[in-house]
């Protein structure tokens, strides 16, 4: 058995970063995710692994430090919560445009505006559809447990370096603030420059040596024809992600007449709702997208011959439901149930919503 602890989701993000060989964290305080940087500052990884931790002057500076670090081929990350992610949006689209790997953690809180510090899932569109300008995608991972907060830090770095594209962990105050049993990952050493080259080629701005052309980390090309060709390349990359990286989990789906689709903390609430509904004789299952981009469209489509209705549950006014409807394409009724503004729906409410929408009660 490995190193088992009782830890908060946010603390685990920090610990997992150190253990997976992260080179640099650049952050700015914002509730409900400040424990990430606090934990790193307490842990002093600069003495242990050489990892650099910087409290930047703003979210804007933090994401641009990430851009600088990523340009060096390093494993770098930042974390924030919704209003801070809006500020980082510029930097995130630059990262995507420059094809740089980085990990961005969003512990979502209710909005819009300054909103509330309580949990929400109302940044789905921002994470999955863009957020910044231009045709780009992030790899978006949605942990539903503290254990997945641990696991997805390493996974996020792996995927972002594999595709040279920023990855995001989209979580919320529930998973960030709660403690669960977690088995921490083994320590991995930080990559050497040789390993960075082996991993993703010689693109990093580590100093131009005589044996290669100079490397330029940029998202600029004033020649529209070239810019279109570059966009084709990005789109091909996103199609490859859709082909290879879709991750999801099915719970109690085998005999299900109805289906919940929910990610993150809503998926946890739906698991309890399944228990309650099945006590009442309602056969409902859960399809939990783990990657929000690429989205498990096919997995949803495979359920369509079986289920009579789908309830998309999200702590929002209805964002992910649009992707469920795109997948379903009118073949079965799809409804949304959500609480928002920082209110967490209870399992009972979710069952009620299922009954009201599909069981005529």
């Amino acid at each position: 058995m490995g190193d088992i602890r009782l830890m908060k989701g946010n603390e685990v993000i920090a610990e997992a970063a150190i253990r997976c060989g992260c080179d640099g964290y650049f952050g700015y305080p914002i509730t409900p995710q400040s424990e990430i940087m606090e934990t790193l500052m307490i842990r002093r990884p600069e003495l242990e692994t050489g990892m650099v931790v910087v409290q930047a002057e703003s979210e804007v500076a933090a994401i641009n430090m990430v851009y600088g670090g990523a340009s060096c081929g390093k494993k770098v990350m930042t974390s924030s919560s919704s209003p801070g992610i809006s500020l980082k949006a510029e930097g995130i689209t630059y990262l995507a445009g420059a094809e740089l790997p980085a990990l961005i953690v969003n512990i979502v809180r209710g909005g819009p505006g300054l909103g509330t510090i309580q949990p929400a899932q109302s940044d789905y569109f921002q994470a999955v559809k863009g957020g910044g300008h231009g045709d780009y995608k992030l790899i978006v991972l949605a942990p539903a447990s503290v254990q997945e907060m641990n696991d997805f830090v390493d996974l996020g770095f792996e995927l972002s370096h594999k595709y040279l594209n920023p990855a995001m962990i989209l979580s919320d105050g529930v998973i960030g603030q709660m403690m669960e049993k977690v088995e921490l990952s083994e320590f991995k050493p930080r990559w050497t420059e040789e390993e960075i080259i082996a991993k993703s080629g010689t693109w990093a701005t580590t100093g131009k040596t005589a044996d290669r052309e100079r490397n330029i980390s940029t998202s600029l090309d004033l020649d529209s024809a070239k810019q279109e060709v570059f966009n084709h390349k990005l789109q091909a990359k996103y199609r490859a992600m859709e082909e290879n990286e879709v991750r999801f989990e099915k719970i109690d789906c085998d005999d299900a007449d109805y289906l919940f689709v929910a990610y993150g903390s809503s998926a946890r609430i739906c698991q309890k709702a399944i228990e309650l509904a099945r006590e009442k004789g309602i056969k409902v299952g859960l399809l939990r997208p783990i990657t929000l981009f690429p989205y498990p469209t096919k997995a949803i489509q495979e359920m369509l011959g079986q289920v009579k209705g789908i309830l998309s549950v999200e702590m929002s006014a209805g964002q992910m439901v649009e992707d469920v409807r795109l997948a379903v394409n009118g073949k079965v009724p799809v409804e949304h149930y959500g609480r928002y503004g920082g209110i967490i729906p209870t399992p009972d409410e979710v069952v009620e919503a299922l009954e009201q929408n599909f069981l005529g009660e």
Partner: protein
Amino acid sequence: MTEEIIIAGFGGQGVLSMGKILAYSGIMQDQEVSWMPSYGPEMRGGTANVTVILSDNRISSPVLKKFDTAIILNQQSMDKFEADVKPGGTLLYDPNGITRHPERTDINIFRIPGAALATEMGNPKTFNMIIMGGFLKVKPIVKLENVQRGLEKSLPERHHKLIPLNIEAIQKGIENVETVLAL
């Protein structure tokens, strides 16, 4: 076995740390656990509550509306959570500062004078472990030895000298819990 517990009281009563020790005790006996606090400004001097779940199986929702057990340590929490105990469930409370005692007749109700006992012990910080003792007496879901190991895990090394005092407080709680209503 799954036990879904809400612990609610004032910030500063040790509500969150009691929940943490309970969760750690669950880990010590190889259970799945979750600990979900209320967080934010309401923590600072106001009410604090934490949902703790111990289970032999994978835990579904860390956020709940109904609880097997409510441990209630102030009037606001009594007003908020009495109705949320499952029928047949358990409510444990400290009568200190309570102006409206629990009224339900379909749940087990226990009382423990935690604040008074803590004063008696001469250390207000023992309060939450006295309550813990009361809880373990009426719901022996974790073994005392696992609580001891949970304390060792959750307290920083420099506070380990306080573990015997905590165990003493738990014993005090075990000895002093009173039954108000047993179904």
